[in-house]
């Protein structure tokens, strides 16, 4: 069993009682995790771990020192607290260090589910068996990772703040490759509830995609209409949201900077079909009601019907600008549309269907231009139908331009991106979408 609120509170109280610094924050993280890994159609490793660590941050004036301990005897905790205080005294002053937060009120959100917390080794083995059986039947090689976990996070300060939360996660991802090495498919999902995870469906999606993607042909890079599956869309909205920082905008370093000073809050920045928000209580992506500093999470609208509504304010920047700080969100939700996947494809004269992206990196913060590649299933669409597999390509595109060129969406679902965003700990809900004039820059030989 993972630690209860009472156990966590007893530990954080005990650690704080040893503190001699002006202010101290302690953060407990840990829990139980168990996994099975497979490759080349065979289980390779299985493991389970249970462990906790406590980060102690001592603040003396504007100096802060942090030490992490994983042994919780009085002697060990005292050593950690003393070391944190010593490091604080030796550290340069951080002019932006903020006072720690005091008592807070948090919403009650169900993020912990017994079915995932109680997932057995047999369940995990069965989830893998589903993939291995299907892979052998279709003559492809499957490799992947299934993990179930129950985790705890508690944050407490010497100023009286205490937050405790526990959450569960069931994560499953696999890659399937044709034995001739010319085709590859992939699928990945993460849910708080085990009952929502369907290993058979995921395995079937990845394996079917591998079989259909073998022997791809190269097409000319250039501008194409794309149908992005939710895993690819997740990276588009994550790259937009992660850049939505108020300080960068105020300092003129971002796409969200207004010409002549200030931010673009209140301006239409993307297509009016686009609404993106964070909400800790979203039923498809429930997350803990507080962030790492102990601030209570609430719904924040980032983009509503194409208009920029908010940017992220750190506590330091918020007080400097006379604004309210925004807690670090635990999820990102994009509202979907009413089309089916078949309808998205049917509306494409000539374009490509993208399974997932890979290795996305920034090129220009002023336009949010990023580069990345496609991977594990790229298909040509001709006259409204998927016609043939094509070789992977590199793309150079801005999420802002992409979300301006969006013209239809499916309903939203939980998604894990090719870059791993949306897995346990940070949830993403988004649709598949059809986007015009997406810019592919070069071809890739990788399968």
């Amino acid at each position, binding site marked *: 069993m993972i630690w209860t609120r009472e156990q966590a509170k007893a530990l954080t109280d005990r650690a704080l009682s040893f503190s001699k610094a002006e202010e101290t924050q302690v953060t407990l993280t840990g829990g139980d995790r168990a996994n099975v890994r497979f490759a080349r159609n065979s289980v390779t490793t299985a493991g389970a771990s249970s462990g906790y660590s406590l980060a102690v941050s001592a603040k003396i004036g504007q100096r802060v020192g942090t030490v992490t301990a994983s042994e919780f005897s009085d002697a060990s905790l005292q050593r950690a607290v003393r070391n944190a205080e010593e490091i604080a005294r030796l550290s340069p002053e951080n002019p932006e260090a903020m006072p720690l937060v005091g008592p807070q009120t948090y919403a009650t959100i169900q993020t912990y589910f017994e079915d995932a917390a109680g997932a057995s080794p047999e369940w995990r083995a069965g989830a893998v068996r589903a993939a291995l059986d299907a892979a052998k039947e279709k003559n492809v090689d499957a490799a992947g990772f299934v993990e179930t976990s129950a985790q705890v996070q508690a944050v407490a300060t010497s100023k009286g703040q205490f937050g405790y939360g526990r959450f569960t996660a069931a994560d499953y991802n696999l890659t399937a490759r044709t034995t001739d090495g010319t085709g590859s498919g992939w699928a990945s999902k993460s849910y708080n509830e085990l009952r929502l995870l369907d290993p058979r469906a995921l395995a079937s999606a990845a394996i079917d995609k591998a079989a259909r993607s073998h022997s791809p042909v190269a097409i000319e890079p250039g501008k194409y209409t794309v149908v992005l599956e939710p895993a690819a869309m997740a990276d588009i909205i994550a790259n937009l949201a992660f850049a939505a920082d108020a300080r960068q905008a105020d300092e003129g370093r971002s796409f969200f900077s207004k010409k002549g000073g200030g931010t673009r809050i209140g301006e239409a920045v993307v297509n009016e079909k686009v609404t993106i928000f964070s909400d800790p209580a979203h039923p498809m992506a429930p997350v803990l009601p507080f962030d790492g500093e102990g601030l209570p999470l609430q719904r924040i609208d980032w983009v509503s019907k194409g208009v920029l509504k908010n940017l992220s304010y750190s506590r330091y920047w918020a007080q400097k600008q006379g604004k309210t700080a925004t807690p670090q969100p635990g999820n990102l939700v994009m509202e979907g549309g009413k089309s089916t996947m078949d309808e998205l494809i049917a509306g494409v004269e000539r374009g490509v269907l993208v399974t997932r992206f890979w*290795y996305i990196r920034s090129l220009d913060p002023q336009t949010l231009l990023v580069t990345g590649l496609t991977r594990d299933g790229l298909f040509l669409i001709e006259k409204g139908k998927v016609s043939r597999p094509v070789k992977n390509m590199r793309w150079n595109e801005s999420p802002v331009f992409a979300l301006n060129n969006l013209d239809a969406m499916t309903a939203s679902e939980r998604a894990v991106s090719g870059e791993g965003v949306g897995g346990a700990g940070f949830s993403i809900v988004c649709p598949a979408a059809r986007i015009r004039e997406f810019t592919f820059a070069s071809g890739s030989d990788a399968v």
Partner: protein
Amino acid sequence: MATCGYDDDGVKTTTFPIIKDGVFVDYQTTRDQAHLIGQKASHGCSYADNWSSVPFQRMPNVSLQPNEKPVTEQDIIAATEDGVYVKGDSSYSIDHQRYNFQFSGQTFWEVKNGKITTQLRDAAYHANTPEFWKSLDMLGGKATYELGGAFSDGKGQPVQSNSVSHGCPIARFKNVDILNTAR
């Protein structure tokens, strides 16, 4: 930056060539892997990012050896009729089988007739890895060698973050695509 006396299998580390005189000669290995390619000892490339993480095969560092001749930055610029000089690293993205890469830099400079003329903006370069390395035609000497690296190189599943470093002299490559990244 990422130099170790022993790896996390307890193997004493050594210097070993991966590519020698342009030819691929050896793999990075762990104790579990060396025997698979008929070798009797590991090259000490097993690392975890934490006492509680499982170690797996990854390198602490890989470096490009400098030219034995004392070729200088000035020699390379002077020998370049029409080129772009990239200083410092910035954005980097490469496909999962390491063919197609696109990198940018801290600063880009135009080189014309053996001289740096002006700074360039909004540039990145792109190539296919084997073709790129085959196009290397000038290599700086020891004096141009610098060590760089990162503290947070992500690998594995569940992902582990570890330090990695790379030493390089100045190098010149022919016929590399330069992109304009402005929109």
